[in-house]
């Protein structure tokens, strides 16, 4: 098992200009570990992170989109795996931080904890590739290649809680930050004139 914040720090070190969609505990930690206007945390309802990520990936095929999902969250929207695979988004990497619990609501185990394989489910749903890591060194060693692969890819990260970070619900859900995300994304489009079109 990896400490979640250490696992996220490895990703942060390799991050360039990827969009990161993050939910719940991962989001609360990610905004401290890798602060960026290209962090999208405005998912609004449990389980919806992967679907927001799909919308963003479809709208910006020139950008790599990483979703930091939870295992409990994904169970609420398991069909999204099939939808994502069917849509064939090559720019989407689906990372599931698997802790086996509903940590935010007190640590109750998820159904099937320790028995289900999100990697196998993703492959069966049509993802191009799936990986599992429970060791920090292996995760660090394999991450660069994963970031350059065509998606959709599933990466299951087996984690336990690490360092506590202060919760900041305003940063996660305030519309001011959603608009900052829109502007930052538009700026990346301006840098690529072939992608410029009228903004809604």
């Amino acid at each position, binding site marked *: 098992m990896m400490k979640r914040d250490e696992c996220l720090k490895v990703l942060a070190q390799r991050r360039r200009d990827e969009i990161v969609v993050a939910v719940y505990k991962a989001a609360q930690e990610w905004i401290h570990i890798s602060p960026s206007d290209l962090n999208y945390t405005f998912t*609004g*309802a449990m389980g919806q992170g992967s679907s927001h990520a*799909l*919308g963003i990936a*479809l*709208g910006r095929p020139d950008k790599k989109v990483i979703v930091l999902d939870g295992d409990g969250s994904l169970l609420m929207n398991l069909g999204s795996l099939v*939808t994502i695979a069917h849509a064939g988004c090559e720019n989407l990497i689906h990372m599931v931080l698997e802790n086996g619990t509903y940590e935010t609501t007190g640590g109750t185990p998820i159904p099937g904890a320790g028995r289900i394989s999100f990697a196998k489910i993703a492959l069966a749903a049509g993802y191009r590739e799936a990986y599992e890591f429970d060791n920090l060194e292996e995760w660090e060693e394999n991450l660069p290649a994963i970031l350059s692969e065509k998606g959709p890819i599933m990466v299951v990260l087996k984690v336990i809680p690490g360092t506590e970070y202060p919760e900041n619900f305003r940063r996660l859900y305030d519309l001011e930050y*959603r608009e900052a995300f829109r502007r930052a994304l538009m700026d990346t489009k301006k840098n690529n004139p072939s992608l410029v*079109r009228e903004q809604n």
Partner: protein
Amino acid sequence: MLEAKKIVEALKRAAIEFVIFLPDRVTSHHLLPAIMADPYFRTVQICKEDEGVSICSGLYVTGHRALLLIQHTGLLDSVNALRGVAVELKNPVIMMVGLLGKEPGIKPKEAKRYGVRIVEPLLDVMGIGHELIEENKDTEKIVPAIEETYRNPSPFVFLIGREPL
């Protein structure tokens, strides 16, 4: 009479590019095939309707306009996503919702089917705007409603009251 081509023309005038859908008997015989056959649109099939609320929201932040085409039962199943994703986060989620089982010419609130009768009151309680599309002349409401929804981001529902032909 309600023609699918009138709806398609209006969606194009409103610059809707993506259509996210889960087939509904009211719209899947004529409207959906017309959309799928038109290379102007990009279609995305979903497994459950609440996914579509979030996909439309993700597309919005990238600068694209989208339509979610579903049945009223899917709308009822997506109430929490509509609450949290569309209403509270002010995302312009445009929906076309087939009222399966509504009698033509009868107001939705007066339909025999309970599931159809409760749709408008539910949307009113949630503060979600809606318009009934049942005749060709109703399609004139589509462009202004979509433009207003993107000026003041929020969800909006077009209730399809009879099968478009």
